[in-house]
């Protein structure tokens, strides 16, 4: 460590170059962190699924509804603790641009089936008591200024129905961007052809071990009916949505690999230029008795220090930006847009790797030169 001062001097020798390299490093890391955060959010649904939750839907696809009468039969299956209808309404608030999810559920069961949703007891009670009641997430409040007691009209193109709700609760947790209302109210409001149908059922099992048994019991119970079911754990259900989007993961990894490689080239090029310009100095150092290893380490240390500083800056900027600007408000399904500690750790490790990998060739080349060769250099 006694050479730290020398390394620092070297870094500051060409301030403009160091600044440009740093900037390149910072923007690349910021971009990597952003993309990694998108990827994390994309798979959060399956990673953070509640291990007790199950979802059943029509076995052909979500476009087919299930009869509402299934609720009683599902509730009787051993191991099922709670069950609620969970139907996509597809309601639009004022304009198509204001997209947010809205589901019809059983307000009495909602609290048991979605423990991640937090709301004061009084609001849960108000939601249960008011047939027209709805609860909205904190992020919807931030986006549209909803308040308790406010009347909200949603128009659903699926049913060509318009329904009016009264906000009875504002919850935190969950994705914070979903409106829930009573399935009974939905059923009363729909035309005859759409009545008594449910999109999916959400269930809570007594123990995680019950899940496979429940799935099998349900699916075989309804196998030979008009509406056979497919029952999955929440994790599997979420995975099926992630797979729907196709090869998003591979695509993002491809882009991140390109960014890393590009960053490696930028750093390698800078370090190569610095090393080359200092070839004669290396000759002098050698003549003074510096060992080959020490000389190589001077360069590796320089690159590593720049990388560390750039990584810290990139991570700091990304944290500052995404903490103050919550992008999850605007992206459906995203719960948060703050990079996870893992993402930051990986970004940091990557920067260090780039720092070392980019200088190895130049450093070993120049440190292996003889004194005469180095001193004779015309750079």
């Amino acid at each position, binding site marked *: 460590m006694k050479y730290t001062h020398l390394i620092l001097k070297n870094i500051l020798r060409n301030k*403009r*170059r160091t600044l*440009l*390299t740093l*900037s*390149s490093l910072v*923007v*690349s890391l*910021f*971009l990597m962190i952003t*993309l990694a955060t998108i990827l994390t959010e994309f798979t959060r649904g399956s990673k953070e699924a509640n291990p007790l939750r199950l979802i059943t839907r029509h*076995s*052909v*696809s*979500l*476009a*087919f509804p299930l009869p509402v009468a299934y609720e009683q039969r599902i509730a009787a299956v051993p191991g099922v603790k709670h069950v609620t209808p969970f139907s996509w309404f*597809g309601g639009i608030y004022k304009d*198509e641009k204001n997209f947010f999810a809205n589901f019809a559920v059983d307000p009495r069961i909602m609290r048991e089936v979605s423990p991640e949703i937090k709301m004061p007891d009084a609001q849960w009670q108000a939601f249960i008591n008011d047939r027209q009641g709805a609860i909205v997430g904190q992020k919807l409040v931030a986006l549209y200024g909803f308040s308790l007691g406010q009347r909200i009209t949603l128009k659903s*193109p*699926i049913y*060509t129905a318009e329904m009016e709700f009264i906000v009875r609760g504002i919850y935190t947790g969950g994705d914070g961007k979903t409106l829930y209302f009573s399935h009974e109210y939905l059923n009363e409001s729909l035309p005859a052809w759409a009545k008594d149908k449910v999109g999916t059922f959400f269930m809570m099992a007594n123990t995680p071990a019950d899940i496979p048994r429940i799935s099998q019991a349900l699916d075989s119970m309804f196998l030979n009916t*008009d*509406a056979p079911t*497919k029952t999955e754990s929440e994790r*599997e259900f979420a*995975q*099926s949505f*992630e*797979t*729907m*989007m*196709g*090869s*998003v993961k591979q*695509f993002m990894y*491809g*882009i991140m690999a*390109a*960014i890393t*490689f*590009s*960053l490696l*080239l*930028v750093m*390698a*090029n*800078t370090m*190569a*230029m610095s090393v080359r310009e200092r070839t004669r100095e290396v000759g002098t150092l050698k003549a003074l008795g510096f060992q080959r290893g020490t000389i190589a380490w001077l360069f590796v240390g320089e690159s590593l220090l720049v990388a560390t500083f750039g990584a810290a800056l990139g991570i700091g900027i990304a944290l500052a930006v995404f903490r103050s600007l919550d992008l999850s408000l605007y992206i459906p399904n995203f719960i948060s847009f703050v990079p996870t500690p893992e993402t930051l750790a990986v970004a940091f490790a990557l920067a260090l790797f780039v720092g070392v990998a980019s200088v190895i060739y130049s450093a070993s080349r120049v440190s292996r030169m003889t004194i005469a060769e180095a001193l004779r250099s015309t750079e």
Partner: protein
Amino acid sequence: MALPIKYNLRNLTVRKGTTLATASTIGLTVMVYLMVMSLARGIDLTLASSGEPLNLIVLRQGSTAELNSDVSRERLNALMYLDGVAREGDQPLAAPEAITLIYRARKGMSQGSNITIRGIGPMSAKLRSGFKLAAGRMFQPGLAEAIVSRRIAERFQGMEIGDKFRIQATDYTVVGLFDAGGKAFESEIWVDVNLLGSTMKRDSFTSVLLRVPDRAQMAALEKRISDDQRLQLKAVSERKFYEDQQGTASGLLKGLGIFISFIMAVGAGFAGMNTMYAAVARRTTEVGTLRVLGFSRRSILAAFVLESIFIAVIGVGIGILLALPLNFVSTGTSNFTNFSEIAFNFRVTPDLMLSALIFGAGIGLFGSLLPSLRAARFKIVDALRAS
């Protein structure tokens, strides 16, 4: 007086490693730009080519997608014999259709996606150019048979000829594979519309496709259907119907693409600046000599800017070469209209390559301006005295 181009080109070869590293940085930026943009372009082109110019699609008023539309049998009869519907012999070129979704696992995975199943009428295939059976035979009307687009058969499990799939209580057998000239239908399964209706216990259709004899009659028929209060339907040109679906998926991708490539470009620009500053520093004496020989400040500036742009153009070349093989890659994602699979190819089109060239050259220009200005501002004496 401008410096000869040869001067620039020679300089590029003096520091081959540096030139290549800088060019590759720009190349990777261009590659990522093309990757994302060609994906968006693939979706756009698939949807844009899907609508026939002379077809009208009739949906329920207020519905935003086929999946939530409904057209009854009586309305179909009213529509078929409207003035302005083209005929073949005495048969109107009109096709009732119904769609639904079936969830299937992708090949090699336990999870998959929704595939659109389209019940088609006798005229449907005629109303869609590009439709061609690739293997097997057409389904027989009234039988529980299906034809599957080749792309779906390639991407999903159990969709080859002879395989069966179940909708409600009916098992459909795959009897043929078809191509649809890269259109959206290439992501579908086709069955007999009447049979699908009875399978689903639904006595109505989701849409009706109508052919008009010529462009001139299109608007009139469109207006006539949409304005008829008794019908409660709306008619849209099929072309517009598909073009309107482009928005969500490809818009998101384009936004992401511009964001990523802009940030990468800034990074690459800084790297380019480093290279050019080094080049200027190395050639300080040379610049002094050139000035003595009578080259103006402006031609020095131009020479360095040009050199940087040359490097960028090499980079664009690398980027395009890296991205071109994507043209052979076919992929699929869920569309946001019906939440069903849409298969398409990456499309690295000439205009995308041109925009990549402009984008890359722009990075070169951005990276070179400051260093070149510095070179142009050297005083002759100082420059010559530099060691």
